């Protein structure tokens, strides 16, 4: 009985003692961690985006897709219907004129993302700098976001995975999609794997940059040549823009 009257006391005292030694916890349960000032994080002044010139994109080229798969360790299981894909190559044909276009379609990083609207747990989220991500720690794999996305940009991981890459954690039972190479952006690389590959092996059809900076290359090109959004009628204001469609 005497134990029941003061439950857990030694443990609490111990935690207090540990706090004094550590100088890290101000009180039991209250925990001070290095503030975010060490790393300022994503700024809402920036909005990252892509511009894809479909006039320069060859229908036979999949350099961006290959580079993306390599960058994020997307090894398929030979089942194209369900294997994860962050980028798809889509071929368009105008039935009247016969004109064809080929374009890579990835997460469009919408300003008003429907996937975020429908997510029941808050796992689908938009970072301050406009990158739309899945917080896989709280994703329950319901796939509402996959149904809500008009661009069919998201994939569900059906299989147990091994040997994931350190910068792209992936796991069975969660939804994933293009993260605009967020690890590269946070590292300050200023480019993505697909853009890098397109410039190296493809038709130099893709430009990555800050849509909010009027002096960035992407903004200058957008101002000069204009662009289109896929399904602009949804008014989602995607961060991925296309020329020539």
């Amino acid at each position, binding site marked *: 009985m005497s134990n029941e009257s003061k439950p857990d006391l*030694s443990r609490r*005292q*111990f*935690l*207090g*003692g*540990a706090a004094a*030694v*550590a100088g*890290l*916890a101000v009180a039991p349960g209250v*925990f001070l*961690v*290095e503030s*975010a000032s*060490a*790393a*300022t*994080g*994503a700024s809402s002044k920036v909005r990252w985006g892509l511009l894809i010139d479909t006039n320069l994109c060859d229908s036979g080229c999949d350099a961006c897709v290959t580079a993306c798969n390599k960058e994020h360790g997307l090894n398929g299981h030979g089942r194209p219907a369900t294997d994860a894909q962050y980028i798809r190559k889509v071929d368009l044909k105008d039935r009247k004129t016969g004109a064809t276009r080929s374009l890579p379609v990835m997460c469009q990083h919408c300003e008003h993302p429907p996937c975020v609207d429908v997510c029941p747990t808050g796992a689908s*989220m938009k*970072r*301050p*700098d406009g*990158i739309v*991500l899945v*917080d*896989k*720690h709280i994703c329950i794999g319901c796939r509402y976001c996959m149904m809500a996305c008009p661009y069919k940009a998201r994939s569900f991981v059906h299989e*147990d*995975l*091994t*040997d*994931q*890459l*350190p*910068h792209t*954690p*992936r*796991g*069975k039972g*969660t939804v994933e999609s293009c993260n605009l190479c*967020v690890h590269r*952006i*946070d590292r300050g690389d200023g480019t993505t794997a697909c853009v890098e590959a397109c410039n190296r092996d493809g038709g130099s059809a893709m430009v990555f940059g800050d849509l909010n900076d009027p002096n960035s290359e992407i903004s200058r090109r957008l101002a000069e040549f204009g662009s289109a959004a896929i399904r602009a009628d949804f008014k989602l204001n995607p961060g991925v823009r296309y020329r020539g469609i």
Partner: protein
Amino acid sequence: MAAVSLVRSLLPALLGAGLLVLLAGCGEVSAPRMMEARGDTCVEPVEVMRRDHMKLLKHERNQALRLGARTERYSLNGCIECHVSPTASREDPSSHFCLNCHAFNAVRFDCFQCHADKPMPDSGRVHALNPNGAQHALTVASGEELANDAQRLVALEIKAQ
């Protein structure tokens, strides 16, 4: 009725006796054989890391993923770079620093269903506190070292009481 009440009154005593017999059969439990880390110092003292590494990691995870505020100091990849050998495997928890202790303490929580469970030797990235490369070989820590750690923790608990 009398028999039932007799059993009722004796039940706690019987249970207690049974527990004592069970406890008497238990020997001393030896600590798991942990890997040594690369480098001489961790990001926090060992007492803090033992009890609170999960709080540091959870805070870091939310800051990094949701706000893009990444501190190299508390990143999970940083832990892996110093503590896990490139040849370790989830399949064999005794070869893996994190899983070794989790298995010993019956902690089922496993970051490595999704996160990389070992350092990438050619990533070119090493934690700031790691003076050696990711290739640096790891050895099992000596029993003395572990005993010293345990003694420090016990001393701390006694002091707090």
